[in-house]
């Protein structure tokens, strides 16, 4: 195959943007994606097989068959799991990655999220660090992401949002009933509610129409293509340049290196399972935190016996996701109005500044719940089956509000991705092994967040509340997975530099959530996108034509 300037591995939030930015700048790009390209016609409204409810499998990859992983429990026992099981920590495998079927919350992090160690100090035993870049470095690229991908919402209700140069490009969707119930309650508590920023068209934007507010939202591809991801924004732009070729159903095996230790391309199994090589001047790894780490670890050679970027045993460490914490409130009045996406109102009052807590998190109302999502969430004391359960479903299905949010992760170097020594995937490639957990202070923050969510629901008139709780046995990386190829100035404690370039290989980049030093108290996708624009900008500026040299 023809040598190209860049191979990008993974067509998700990060890789899609990198492919577009490089292709627009004139580089020849091959974008490799292990999944398929789905469209709005693949919505299917299947409550049991989507990306959030996976009783019958993942709708948007990977398939259960042929893609195992292993996780290690607290006692050290290893368990092999398939992709639709929770401990697998799946995101998605498709063009668009997680942004095809996400809820589309598109938050900016706050300036403190980039300075966690210097703001709070690192809890003992944690690997909490500052980023080598600041919010100000990313601000122009957050802006670019909001306008190119398309974000609706309104930050003006809160004084806590990060400095920004202009409002979001689209107004929020009109408030739903939960917004109407929660907003006055938040204000009575002295909180500052805002309309959640969402990568969802509230008005016609970017050549596509607005949200029709159906109930099949998070977990599904949007039936009217009003939800914005890389698959319907930047990737089509990349392809339209004529400089980018997208190859789907291609599983990358390893990054190939030459005798000097520089990358010369990748080898991959194509859609028919044939092993291919794609040579390139540079390689961008954007396969998400678990799979990017796996690819680096699998890229072993004489010069890199433990994998690329892994000279100091850093690849795969600091795995984190988000511990979701909050409360469910039950009401006498009907709270359900059948208006998707459902999630509509949030507060940022609790993200930072609580004495004794290292950060906090955003709290928001949950996405609209399908009936199957409520069967295990009836009030305490409700029978789990039988007539009492059926009656409770009738009484409470339309009378509940959940308030929750992503708890700031206090990372631990022991929470990590390694390669399983025994289990291989359908191509014979060693698979991801997940072990360890985030620092326990994470769960202390979560417990406080749950109390705060409960207080908000009670103020809003909840007659009964249930707090989320429990401590998972292993790190829950899932759709918010991050941290495995941490960005930093010191090669001994990080994998990539401040431009996302692997420390010891000057033409390999990791551009996705793997580089997050900390995952913030917000859904991380817009930050992945901002970093992709930021890193692409640096990459293009460093591009000398015909070959990449630092």
């Amino acid at each position, binding site marked *: 195959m023809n040598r190209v300037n860049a191979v990008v591995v993974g067509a998700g939030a990060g890789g899609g943007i990198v492919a577009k930015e490089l292709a627009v700048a004139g580089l020849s790009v091959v974008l490799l994606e292990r999944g398929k390209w789905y469209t709005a016609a693949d919505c299917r409204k299947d409550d*049991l097989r989507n990306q959030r409810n996976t009783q019958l499998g993942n709708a948007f990859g990977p398939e259960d068959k042929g893609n195992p992983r292993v996780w290690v429990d607290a006692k050290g026992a290893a368990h092999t799991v398939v992709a639709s099981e929770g401990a697998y920590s799946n995101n998605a495998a498709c063009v668009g990655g997680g942004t095809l079927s996400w809820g589309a919350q598109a938050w900016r992090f706050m300036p403190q999220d980039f300075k966690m160690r210097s703001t709070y100090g690192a809890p003992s035993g944690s690997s909490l660090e500052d980023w080598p870049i600041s919010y100000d470095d990313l601000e122009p690229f957050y802006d670019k992401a909001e306008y190119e991908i398309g974000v609706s919402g309104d930050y003006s209700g809160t004084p806590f949002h990060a400095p920004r140069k202009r409002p979001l490009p689209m107004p929020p*969707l009109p408030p739903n009933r939960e917004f109407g119930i929660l907003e006055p309650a938040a204000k009575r508590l002295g909180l500052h509610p805002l309309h959640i920023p969402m990568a969802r068209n509230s008005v016609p934007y970017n050549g596509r129409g607005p949200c029709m507010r159906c109930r099949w939202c998070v977990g599904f591809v949007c039936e009217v293509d009003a939800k914005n991801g890389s698959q319907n924004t930047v990737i089509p732009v990349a392809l339209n340049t004529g400089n980018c070729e997208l190859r789907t159903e291609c599983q990358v095996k390893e990054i190939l290196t030459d005798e000097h230790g520089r990358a010369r391309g990748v080898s991959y199994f194509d859609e028919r399972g044939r092993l291919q090589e794609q040579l390139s001047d540079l390689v961008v790894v954007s396969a998400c935190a678990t799979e990017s780490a796996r690819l680096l670890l699998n890229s072993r050679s004489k010069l890199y016996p433990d994998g690329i970027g892994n000279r100091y045993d850093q690849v795969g460490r600091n795995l984190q996701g988000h511990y979701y914490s909050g409360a469910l409130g039950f009401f006498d009045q009907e709270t359900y109005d059948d208006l998707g996406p459902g999630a509509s109102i949030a507060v940022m009052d609790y993200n930072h500044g609580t004495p004794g807590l290292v950060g906090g998190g955003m709290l928001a109302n949950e996405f609209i719940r399908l009936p199957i999502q409520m069967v295990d969430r009836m009030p305490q004391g409700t029978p789990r*089956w039988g007539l009492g359960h059926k009656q409770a479903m009738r009484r409470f299905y339309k009378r509940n509000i959940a308030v929750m949010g992503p708890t700031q992760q206090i990372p631990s170097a022991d929470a990590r991705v390694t390669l399983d020594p025994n289990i291989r995937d359908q191509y014979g490639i060693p698979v991801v092994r997940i072990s360890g957990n985030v620092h326990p202070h994470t769960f202390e923050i979560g417990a406080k967040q749950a109390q705060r969510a409960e207080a908000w629901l009670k103020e809003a008139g909840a007659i009964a509340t249930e707090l989320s709780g429990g401590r998972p046995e292993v790190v829950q990386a899932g759709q918010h997975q991050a941290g495995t190829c941490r960005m930093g100035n010191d090669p001994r404690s990080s994998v990539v530099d401040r431009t996302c370039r692997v420390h010891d290989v000057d033409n390999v980049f990791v551009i996705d959530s793997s580089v997050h030093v900390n995952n913030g108290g917000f859904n991380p996708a817009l930050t992945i996108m901002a970093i992709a624009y930021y890193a692409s900008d640096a990459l293009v500026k460093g591009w000398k034509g015909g070959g990449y040299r630092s």
Partner: protein
Amino acid sequence: MDDGGRSQDVTRRQFVALGTLGGAALAAGCGSKASGGWEFLRDAQATTLKAICDQIIPKDDYPSASEAGVLNYIDRQLVRHYRPHQGAYRDGLEQAEAQSRERFGKAIAELGAADQLAVVTDMERDHHSFFEMVRDHTLEGYYGSPRHGGNRDELSWKMLGLGDPPLLGRAQYDLTKEPQQ
């Protein structure tokens, strides 16, 4: 929960007919069906499973699990996504019958509602993991998408007051106005 056994209102003949109808409609093109209309279950197993499912979601003013097609759902999935659970169902249903005969001297389907409930409660205690699986699958078949053979005619959604959603969206906006910032 004492009136849970009103699932007996549906006779076995009616039940098999319902099952065949629903199954045939949804399995069209999927090849020939076994004698009782099931893809995996034997008729006797289906009878046992029906009694259990109808205790998990009994009939009241709204349909029971089996009336809503839950057995179709489980049967179909046992040759699809839940194929790995075939053995657990074979063994678990046999154990349920053994428990019923040991305690009441009869097959579970021949018991009255209160005794059926007692057998299923025993099952929850003594064969917990199998019970939990049947419970989860029953709720999926009842409250999940009709496309998999359960939730016939969206019966559970109608019970919860969920009609087919109207097309909202554009009606929510005055598109003659400029977006407000």
